[in-house]
């Protein structure tokens, strides 16, 4: 059962020209102790996805739909899918109705009264297609009420001495947690307009303690006027009630873990080399033994030798501490080296996801093929690289239907008119394309 489940997430940025659809309906599951690599070009939404999970979005970001469920206790997990299905089944007629009405209003000649109605219907369809936790709760209201009653009754029974009801009580509580969408980070902090609150006590219990992030560009992520040690100690003491001495001892341990000599704790960032700064950032991310670490381009600004050492270090620590890891990179080879699974992102969507070996050996999305064919390698034959024609689209007005179709060599008419379905030709390997099955049957697209 997943530690982190991102479901239909939509994070848009408000800019003067409209909405930048940086993350537009992303699904991603991550198990405990697993490493997933997120690849894509700049501007495809990888970092926005990471910042949505850690809720470090700028103030013009709005989350319009979806859930980010971080399973803190893990008990609610087995019951979740059943409630999701139940709610979606109940919502289906409403969705159909709204869609039908939307179509009739759209096709009718434009009038003044129709415009607000159109907006309303669009919003309704969107809310039902990418449900937030509150949508689920409205459709699950009877179950939630019943479960609340059961929990109340069982608690009373348990407290009056009926020890036999203990098990039933635990189960009812877990069911209630699942039905109320407990653990959805978006639900905790989302304001009515879609922006996320910067602070919430429930979020604070998760952030950095359970989910931490290694920021892109360590050189800019450290404060130049404080010593590095002080910054890490501050992180520890903000979240945990420990004395300065104990926190310092912890920093020493962390430094040993990431391979910086302990006598460098009281140096300022400018006295560190680039690689050491990156190591210090990793130490900071690990300070509270999180269960999930997101590393956003952790080695991009570093020289190859330093980068390879730091990547090895991250993997070693991850195995030792059994953390889940999301590695974000534009470099397919970095991700190929470290990740169990790879998710390829293009224009705000995950277009292919699967086990690393499968992504290479049986590529089912044309964009992945393009990405892999564009990478030079120091081993193997020197083959002619192939670039993808055109440019990544603007996320202000992405192409209709399949977002890759203007650049795709296999594109047909259907690609510009119908949204591509998500197809899973083999367990754990999915692609967002009309022709996944055809590509899969061919034995994959990429010939390395």
């Amino acid at each position, binding site marked *: 059962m997943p530690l982190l489940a991102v479901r239909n997430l939509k994070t848009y940025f408000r800019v003067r020209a409209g909405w930048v659809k940086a993350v537009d309906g992303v699904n991603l599951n991550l198990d405990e102790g697993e490493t997933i690599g997120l690849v894509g*070009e*700049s501007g495809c939404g990888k970092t926005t996805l990471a910042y949505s999970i850690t809720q470090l979005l700028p103030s013009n970001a709005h989350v319009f739909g979806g859930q980010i469920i971080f399973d803190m206790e893990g008990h609610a997990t087995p019951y979740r899918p059943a409630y999701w299905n139940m709610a979606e089944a109940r919502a289906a007629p409403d969705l159909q109705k709204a869609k039908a009405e939307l179509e009739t209003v759209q096709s009718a000649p434009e009038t003044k009264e129709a415009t607000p109605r159109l907006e309303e219907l669009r919003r309704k369809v969107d809310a039902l297609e990418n449900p937030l936790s509150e949508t689920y709760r409205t459709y699950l209201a009877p179950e939630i009420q019943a479960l609340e009653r059961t929990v109340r009754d069982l608690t009373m029974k348990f407290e009056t001495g009926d020890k036999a009801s203990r098990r039933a009580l635990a189960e009812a509580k877990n069911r209630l947690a699942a039905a109320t969408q407990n653990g959805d980070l978006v639900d905790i902090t989302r304001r009515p307009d879609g922006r996320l609150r910067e602070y919430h006590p429930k979020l604070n219990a998760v952030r950095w303690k359970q989910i931490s992030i290694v920021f892109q560009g360590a050189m800019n992520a450290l404060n130049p006027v404080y010593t590095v040690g002080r910054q890490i100690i501050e992180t520890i003491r903000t979240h945990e009630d420990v004395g300065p001495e104990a926190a310092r001892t912890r920093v020493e341990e962390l430094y040993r873990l990431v*391979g*910086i*000599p302990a*006598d460098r704790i009281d140096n300022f960032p400018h*006295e*560190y*080399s*680039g*690689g*050491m700064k990156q190591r210090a950032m990793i130490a900071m991310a690990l300070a509270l033994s999180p269960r999930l670490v997101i590393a956003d381009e952790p080695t991009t600004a570093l*020289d*190859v*030798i*330093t*980068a*390879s*050492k730091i*990547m090895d270090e991250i993997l070693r620590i991850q195995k030792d501490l059994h953390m889940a890891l999301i590695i974000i990179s*534009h*470099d*397919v*080879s*970095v991700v*190929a*080296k470290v*990740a169990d699974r790879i998710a390829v992102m293009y224009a705000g969507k995950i277009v292919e996801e699967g086990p*690393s*070996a499968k*992504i*290479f050996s049986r590529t089912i999305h044309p964009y992945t093929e*393009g*990405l*892999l*064919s*564009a*990478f*030079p*390698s*120091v*081993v*193997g034959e*020197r083959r*002619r*690289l*192939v*670039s*993808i024609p055109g*440019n*990544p689209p603007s996320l202000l007005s992405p192409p209709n239907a399949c977002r890759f179709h203007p650049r795709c060599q296999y594109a047909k008419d259907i690609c510009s008119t119908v949204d591509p379905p998500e197809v899973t030709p083999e367990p754990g390997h999915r692609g967002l394309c009309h022709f996944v099955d055809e590509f899969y049957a061919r034995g994959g697209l990429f010939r*390395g």
Partner: protein
Amino acid sequence: MTEVGPAAEMPADGAEIHVVDLKKYFDLRRGFLKSFRGEPVRVRAVDGISFDIRQGEILSLVGESGCGKTTTGRLLTRLEEPTGGHIMFGGVDIASLEGHALFEFRRNVQMIFQDPYESLNPRYTVFRAVSEPLIIHRIATSLEERTEVVIRALEDAGLRPAQDMLDRFPHELSGGQRQRVAIARAIVLNPKVIVADEPVSMLDVSIRAGVMNLMLDLREKYRIPYVFITHDIAVARYMADRIAVMYLGRIVETGPMDEVIAHATHPYTRALLASVPVPDPEHTYAQVPIFGELPSPINVPSGCRFRTRCVYAQEICTTTVPPNIEVKPGHFAECHFAVDIFEGRMAPREAVSEAALESMSAGPPSVEP
């Protein structure tokens, strides 16, 4: 530096540029009082390098940040004055060029910069950016002629239809298109040599392959030699015929690209190759054979400058500067044990243990220029 490889002593046939014992030192500014006593602090960015650029070939300078590869590129185009050594171009040392001869030189050696967002004037249209060199050098004096030459250059750079590009400003172009404009501007004067400093490292992956292929195609078409400066050895392998690996201001290994990749001899090149990630999840990686971090270019180690990080280092490496040894025709490595390593007769000094790495990383941090 007394050791100069044979390649440097004799200009090879068809060498376009011939570099001998080139040096560039930068004086660091120090405190007011300190500046009165003692030697000035110097960064030896380029410290005695020799190489040739031959007709029609692509030579890649590869190394980590701070190894002096960009400074070398700037010296070749005379954007910096060398501290010592010679750069021979057309039989004359470019340091001695003045007046009209320098003007001619500037026409013959063109540079492509790393960042197309900064190398193009945002207030110039594409036409003006590409035609400006023509105006300066008084080539194609009428507007019609100029337009024709510019269009040809833009089409060569893969910007089609070029007619539509002429009136655009850089902000209307994508990163890949901008770099193509920069390439068009470099080739419009029919230069004899192009120095490209990390021309693809700012570009997106899907765009990068196109720009690299374009540069290869232009080489095929016009036989212009390139100096291709990059930190990415995989990119270098794709682009270049020959490679020169730089470390702390020295060229430590040079030779034909495939030969160096297959039989890397200098311990630094070996470490560099071992640390490059490979786009193949099935690839098995060996431990990277290197210790510690890059030393400061102010305090370059005595003897062999790689010895502090070298897994083969021995007594002699501390005391004696290594000779440039030709392990195979055209393949040179600057290491005392080059032959032994090349023939696989050399065992690493000790296993690259974590304890050793930890004790080594306590050294001074590297200074980024």
